[in-house]
């Protein structure tokens, strides 16, 4: 938000002059509720991963690693669809900071080469 605004002539016609711009916009800041996963109950069926509209479920080696809280908008579809009832929607303040940190994806895609 502190970037200088481009003028009309600096803007490419009808487009943004770079790719991967979402990597800078943390839409996770928009949510009210966040999903909390109980890994005792989770069977790693990955149904939450299939349904997530924001691709915010992080999977590693075929298992659910966690939720990408930087992009999860708290829609609750994962909690609704989980056949093991392993996900509950909690207020932001009720998600332990430690859990949030542990569930971030290890590799972040590069914005520019």
């Amino acid at each position, binding site marked *: 938000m502190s970037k200088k*605004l481009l*003028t*009309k002539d600096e*803007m490419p*016609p*009808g*487009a943004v002059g*770079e790719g991967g*711009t979402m990597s800078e916009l943390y839409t996770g800041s928009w949510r009210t509720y966040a999903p909390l996963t109980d890994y005792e109950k989770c069977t790693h069926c990955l149904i939450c991963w299939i349904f997530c509209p924001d691709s915010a479920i992080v999977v590693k080696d075929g298992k659910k690693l966690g939720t990408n809280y930087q992009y999860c908008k708290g829609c609750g579809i994962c909690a609704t669809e989980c056949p093991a009832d392993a996900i509950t929607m909690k207020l932001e303040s009720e998600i332990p900071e430690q859990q949030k940190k542990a569930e971030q994806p290890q590799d972040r895609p590069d914005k520019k080469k």
Partner: protein
Amino acid sequence: MSERMALTGNDAAAYALKQINPDVVAAYPITPQTELMHKFAEYVADGEVDTEFIPVESEHSAMSAVVGASVAGARCSTATSSCGLALMWEILYVAASCRCPVVMPVVNRALSAPINIHCDHSDTMGARDAGWIQIYSENCQEAYDNIIQAVRIAEHPDVQLPVMVTFDGFIVSHTLEGLEVNDDDAVKKFIGEYKPEHTLLDVDDPRTFGMFSLQNYYFEFKKQQVEAMQRALKVIPEIAKEYEKLTGRAYGLLDPYRCDDAEVVIVGLGSTMGTAKQAADEVREEDGIAAGVLKMRCFRPYPFAEIRKALSKAAVVGVMDRAISFGLGGPLFNEVRSALYGGEKPLVNFIYGLGGRDLPLDDAREVFRALAKVKDTGKTGPETRYIGLRE
């Protein structure tokens, strides 16, 4: 080299598309356009084109598929009429705003209700604000020629806007007429290869298309489109000149007929202007009326200056509208009258607030001050002004 053929408007348009050989064509049927895509589908089936042909589930999907293919770097087309154009209305704006150089034949047909499959111009009139270039054809020859020229107009680096080429439903689309067609190589050479500067598939220099934007950016994108439309007023005659060199057939923004010594002039679009030209000849002969016809070819961008010039000698002007803008009147009439406004009262147009950009009180005060300046100096200055734009 050219060949003389007898084709219906739909077949002539399909033949033009065949020679253009687009990368992607999306198709959905609607009377009276259907046969155009039927014919083109035959070319696809017979291997006469390399086009990826996508039959879709609606016109909204047709235009969506075309926009997607276009930003990916494909030369694309689709065709429609009437309610089909109306159904893709949302995406027409997207195509224009994403600067997709799509060429779309539109076979003019009345909008419902009641359901009517015959010709009027309400469909394309309803889309006149969408940001598409609109070129109206009188007959099969023009439909064919305009579609080919449209590819060059749309893809021109100064333009990069979609173009709809219209022709009258049934009257032209289903009527067999004699026309001259160019040979395949001539068309291929004329349109050249589509070389977009940036596409969605360019991973080395990526661009983002179809993004979200807030009050701080939307307005500037719109001004880009405005300027592209302005530049099209020069590009369209340039392309026409090139086409004339190739074919011997001349085109312009307008097609004036016996206007130089006309006292009464009819202005209009489409096939009826052919009838009007015949009528002009006959009333000159029989009734001694100094009649002329100003057929408009390019409706968007609107050629204000050219209209004023072409009608400067006429004592009386009659505008024939094959559409009604309910609550306003004939759309073409209102636009011609706007072009002919004599300036009894200075008029200034202020464009503001697009994309939600705020209009603070100070700016409103500035509008009044600008108007007062016009009044005091007697000079109108720029007729269209933009408030709060970051140029």
